[in-house]
């Protein structure tokens, strides 16, 4: 069926599309900036005006993963010949790769920070969403004394700017030996995300008719079995949406990670900018670290995109 449109509607439609394009461009610009810089040769990274056309290089990534030191003199042709292709890229940048006494290449701090980030973000997301879902189910299905007050109390933990508690938290963590540990950050991020997770999940679970569980109860299942067999699959959309938000918060958290960790459990966000100060600022290395750091969230969101879209419009679908 061909839609009949008036000229006015067509113009309006075009304006809408144009606005969406403009907004999208504005949002994509910084991402393009980071991605393009992470493939630039170092001397092009800070040119004014910015270099748009260039031959992409992989050298920033090589530098990102290796420990390097400044070259005092150019490498001898033999040294240069003997080096593998990626080491030559470092030589070309006026640096050399640091090797141990036995000749092993030393890794930079980035990979371990990245893994720390994954451990902390995934664990705290699982914990926050898991506990949040159970709590929300309880609030949604049972009469809880002072339900409104309790829910408000849970929400009120988010009203305080986190930085306000940073110093006391640091002192407490030091006292109990939680600073610079994975669990320290995991507990912290779980606590931050829990209130959000409870509120969001309560909204989703309220939407699931309780008749489903009651049918399961009557059919010979316990409350717990009914929860896992009937409620959880129905809440998948909500869980996915909540998980994405919790993951992004935990993944991107900077202030507490900076204060609470320095080496063992340090996550990527405080590590990446710390590279500015080591030697000459090499923006291409920082950009490549940031680019790789963006990927997990992008992949996670992409995998759950269908759930997210449904989650955003929840309430409008059912009933």
């Amino acid at each position, binding site marked *: 069926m061909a839609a009949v449109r008036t000229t006015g509607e067509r113009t309006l439609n075009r304006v809408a599309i144009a606005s969406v394009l403009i907004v999208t461009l504005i949002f994509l610009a910084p991402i393009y900036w980071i991605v393009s810089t992470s493939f630039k040769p170092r001397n092009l990274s800070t040119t004014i005006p910015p270099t748009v056309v260039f031959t992409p290089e992989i050298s920033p990534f090589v530098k990102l993963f290796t420990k390097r030191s400044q070259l005092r003199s150019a490498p001898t042709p033999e040294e240069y010949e003997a080096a593998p292709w990626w080491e030559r890229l470092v030589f070309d940048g006026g640096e050399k790769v640091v090797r141990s006494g036995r000749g092993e290449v030393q890794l930079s701090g980035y990979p371990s920070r990245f893994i720390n980030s994954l451990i902390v973000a995934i664990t705290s997301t699982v914990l926050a969403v898991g506990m949040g879902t159970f709590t929300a189910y309880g609030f949604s299905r049972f009469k809880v004394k002072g339900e409104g007050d309790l829910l408000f109390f849970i929400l009120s933990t988010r009203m305080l700017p986190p930085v306000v508690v940073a110093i006391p938290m640091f002192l407490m963590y030091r006292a109990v030996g939680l600073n610079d540990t994975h669990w320290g950050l995991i507990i912290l991020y779980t606590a931050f995300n829990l209130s959000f997770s409870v509120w969001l999940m309560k909204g989703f679970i309220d939407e699931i008719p309780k008749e489903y569980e009651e049918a399961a109860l*009557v059919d010979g299942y316990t409350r717990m079995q009914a929860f896992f067999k009937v409620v959880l699959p129905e809440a998948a959309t909500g869980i996915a949406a909540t998980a994405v938000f919790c993951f992004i918060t935990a993944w991107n958290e900077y202030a507490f990670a900076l204060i609470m960790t320095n080496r063992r459990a340090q996550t990527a966000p405080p590590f990446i900018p710390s590279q500015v100060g080591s030697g000459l600022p090499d923006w291409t290395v920082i950009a490549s670290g940031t680019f790789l750091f963006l990927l997990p969230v992008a992949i996670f969101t992409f995998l759950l995109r269908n759930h997210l879209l449904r989650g955003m419009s929840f309430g409008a679908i059912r009933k």
Partner: protein
Amino acid sequence: MAHIELKNVTKTFGKQTALRNLDLEIADGEFFVLLGETGAGKTTTLRLVAGLDKPTEGQVFIDGIDVADWGAAERDVALVLQQYSLYPRYTVRQNLEFPLKSKLRRVPDAEIAERVARVAKTLRIEHLLERKTDRLSGGEMQRVSIGRAIVRNPRVFLMDEPLSALDAKLRETLRTELKNIQMNLGQTFLFVTHDQIEAMSMGDKIGVLNKGRLVQSGTPNEIYNNPRNTFVARSVGSPPMNLIDGKLVSGRAVMTAANFELPYAGASGSVTDGRALTFGIRPEDLQVEEGAPVEALVHDIENHGVEKILTLRVGDTTLRATAPAQMRVMIEDQVRFGWDPEKVALFDHGTGMSLRHQA
């Protein structure tokens, strides 16, 4: 198979009283229909029997055992709801298997398959077995829902307006089917509805609920012919019983407001004379014919094919009467009507109680 008894059950939700001192008995193998308007406490009664709610006061007995401490799973009842009764994301087969896969029952896989197949055949839903439930029509959904109840062979079937969300034609078909199933299984059914036609056509016994109280319970015939009060008289029958205010004066019913009188066959005496009464007469017991005692105007005509339902106007009072389909009558025609004096029910005007029940 089970006998169900509710003894002096009261259920309150906060400040609201849903059920008040309810006594109810359902015999083994009986099709019991609870009839009442929205908010009368029908669903609450059902949930108390199912074990989804606990009574605030009173006891529930299944086969003579007080089931206060039994959860829904242990009571072995099956529940069919108006909607949301199928598990979403599951196929029809998975829905039918679900109750059998409970750890409580431990039915062997071969038997599950066999029982599902048998139920699917009974309900003619074999072709739907592999379909997801969100791709079923309303009638198919309710069929599957009923199937999920039957497949378990429970002690009691509880049905909460299972047909109300369906269109008229389908409702009629399923009504017959459900009644047949019940007769074949010989099981106890507790069926909740607001639709008096469903109650009349399906129930072995009907309980009429009003504002949390059981007003009357009995066979459809008892309820229809001998309503306990004007509430029951109004709720059962379509069109409902005509109720006219008046009094008895020396063996004749005198309608003071409408200003007409008709003969009354029952005994009049000190109980009735001079007392403010309400006369009840079923539309089929009003006869529209020439030479009848009272004159009226035809206010409205509904042609139902098998018969016509006339609305008659006498003064400000309107009465409904059935007439043969071939009767030739027009709106605003003048007609005469009388009643069958044997079929008149008397109610106290103040309390609405039937005098027959009081005596």
